[in-house]
């Protein structure tokens, strides 16, 4: 297992270096002068220009610049926002809980519906239910989620007036964040109605963000289950006269879930890409919207830092998924 871990880590380091090179190169590839871009100032005087050049280190050779940059990152310095003048890492940490809360709720919803739906479709293969479930899953998989979000807003916020259009909680409530998770913080605040307000703000974004992972998980569960159900040991279990539910639940499901776990783990990247759109539609103050806003505000140091932080996080999650996969499927470890 240790060898497996080291092997995976060995693969991760070059990837991280590559990712950091992309983030490093980003500012330098943008059209225009990087110093003017980073300083966010129009018409810098020659004196100030040289001063800034020294501050950002642009007067040094490019290789030295890169290693300085890498050194800063390893010390936790991801740059400073041009617009807010706050450290990028600090902004990321403030906004990340909002994305995390939304993503966790979405993945719970996707798993809670996707796995049973996939099992059911596989067990009743070819039936009307199977075809309907797989049909709906394919529609979900093909969904432009930004449009799906707008449709839900029209129906639930516009016509039915059940849910708010945007934000994380009603402006009526105010409390200091403790965990950063609105669901927990609103309960801790003890204010009547705060929790309900947080939930009603969370429902639509969760549904929108969960749509594609839900479809993927349902399809993957079904095909994994079908594969396992045709295995010899399942036939043996059946011929022994075990109850069908026991065969499906105990013998088949446990083995079918192995690839499903990987699929769920791999949805993290999908979730973050989805968060960019979902958060933009619902004005959800998370890192997805933060990145889009920064691109538009030309706050390039935020884009640079955010790129690296997000990619780093996805790589970490993928590592954990690989390790979990190795744990539950010893064949992989060799």
């Amino acid at each position, binding site marked *: 297992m240790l060898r497996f871990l080291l092997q995976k880590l060995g*693969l991760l380091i*070059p*990837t991280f270096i*590559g*990712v950091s*090179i*992309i983030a490093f190169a*980003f500012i330098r*590839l*943008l*059209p225009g002068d990087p110093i003017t871009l980073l300083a966010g100032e129009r018409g810098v005087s020659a004196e100030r220009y040289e001063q800034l050049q020294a501050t950002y280190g642009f007067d040094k050779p490019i290789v030295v610049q890169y290693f300085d940059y890498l050194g800063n990152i390893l010390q936790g310095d991801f740059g400073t926002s041009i617009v807010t003048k706050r450290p990028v890492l600090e902004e990321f940490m403030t906004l990340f809980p909002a994305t995390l809360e939304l993503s966790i709720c979405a993945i719970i919803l996707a798993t809670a519906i996707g796995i049973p739906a996939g099992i059911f479709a596989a067990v009743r293969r070819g039936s009307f239910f199977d075809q309907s479930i797989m*049909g709906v899953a*394919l*529609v979900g*998989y*093909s*969904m*432009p989620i*930004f*449009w*799906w979000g*707008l*449709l839900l*807003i*029209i129906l639930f*916020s*516009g016509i039915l007036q059940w849910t708010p259009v945007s934000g994380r909680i009603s402006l009526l409530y105010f409390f200091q964040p403790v965990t950063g998770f609105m669901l927990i913080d609103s309960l801790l605040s003890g204010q009547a109605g705060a929790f309900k307000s947080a939930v009603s703000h969370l429902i639509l974004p969760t549904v929108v963000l969960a749509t594609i992972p839900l479809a993927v998980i349902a399809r993957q569960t079904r095909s994994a289950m079908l594969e396992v159900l*045709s295995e010899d040991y399942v036939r043996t279990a059946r011929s022994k006269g075990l109850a069908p539910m026991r065969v499906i639940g105990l013998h088949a499901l446990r083995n079918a879930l192995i690839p499903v776990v990987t699929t769920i783990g791999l949805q993290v*990247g*999908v979730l*973050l*890409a989805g968060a*960019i*759109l979902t958060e*933009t539609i619902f004005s959800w103050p998370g890192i997805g919207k933060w*990145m*889009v806003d920064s*691109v*538009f505000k030309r706050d390039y140091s935020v*884009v640079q830092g955010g*790129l690296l932080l*997000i*990619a780093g996080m*996805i*790589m970490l999650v993928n590592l954990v998924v690989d390790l979990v996969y190795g744990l539950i499927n010893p064949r992989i470890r060799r």
Partner: protein
Amino acid sequence: MTDTSQIVEEDLEHLEETVGPARRGRLSEFWYYFSQNKGAVIGLVVFTIVVLVAVFAPLIAPHNPSIQNRDAFLVPPFWMEGGNSAYVLGTDAVGRDILSRLIFGARFSLFIGLFVVVLAMSVGILVGLIAGYARGWVDTVIMRIMDVILAFPSLLLALVLVAILGPGLLNAMVAIALVLQPHFVRLTRASVMAERTREYVISSRVAGAGVFRLMFITILPNCMAPLIVQATLSFSNAILDAAALGFLGMGAQPPTPEWGTMLAEAREFILRAWWVVTFPGLAILVTVLAINLMGDGMRDALDPRLKKS
């Protein structure tokens, strides 16, 4: 001497006789399995209709997609109160006919899908062939670069690339192609590695085939099945991602009747005029769904493991 060469020639003739029909046989076998899948056939029909609509857009569209009618702002679809049969699906905020814009939008979406897939696939296959065939450090370097691209959420990377290249449809397509291309590299490389030690490849090399012949003529045709399936998936992904970039204001720029861009323009009217938002998204969904249905059918028809069941 003459005897052997004669035998070889006869063998070759015999081979051509059997291979020729086998190729045709494979195609009809593919069609047999593909047409067994009802969803795939429906997908193919819908996709064909979208293609026809795109090709004949100027003939079908009732109005010019970019002409604004000042007397008809936000006219609802014809079946609603206040609707006008001249504007079947209503008009947008500046009085343009939505149906005509959707019809012309089909051209953009199909072009985006085609452009992105051709670019991503040709680059991906070339790089994948090199990685799988060369092995060693070349392979390692290529695959680490692909890992780096895959470490970013695809839409975020595309968004940032467009920020570098400048907003616009062409740049958006190039960015999306770059983001989708690692999948082709990985697939090609995996197939090449599985095939390169097979007997037919070795015998071809022994017979004196050069590297390029081995890569492109001997090995590549035997790796095509998963690549074709991936191409269909990428086609729909390209349409979705381009629409998403358009929606974020980074793809095709107004007044282009691209479906995602139309949605972006319609956002502020969602609570007043549902039709401005509903139809462009529906067009994206139907097109992408049709392509994905076809993709599922192709996968089933090309995957020999699934054929038995």
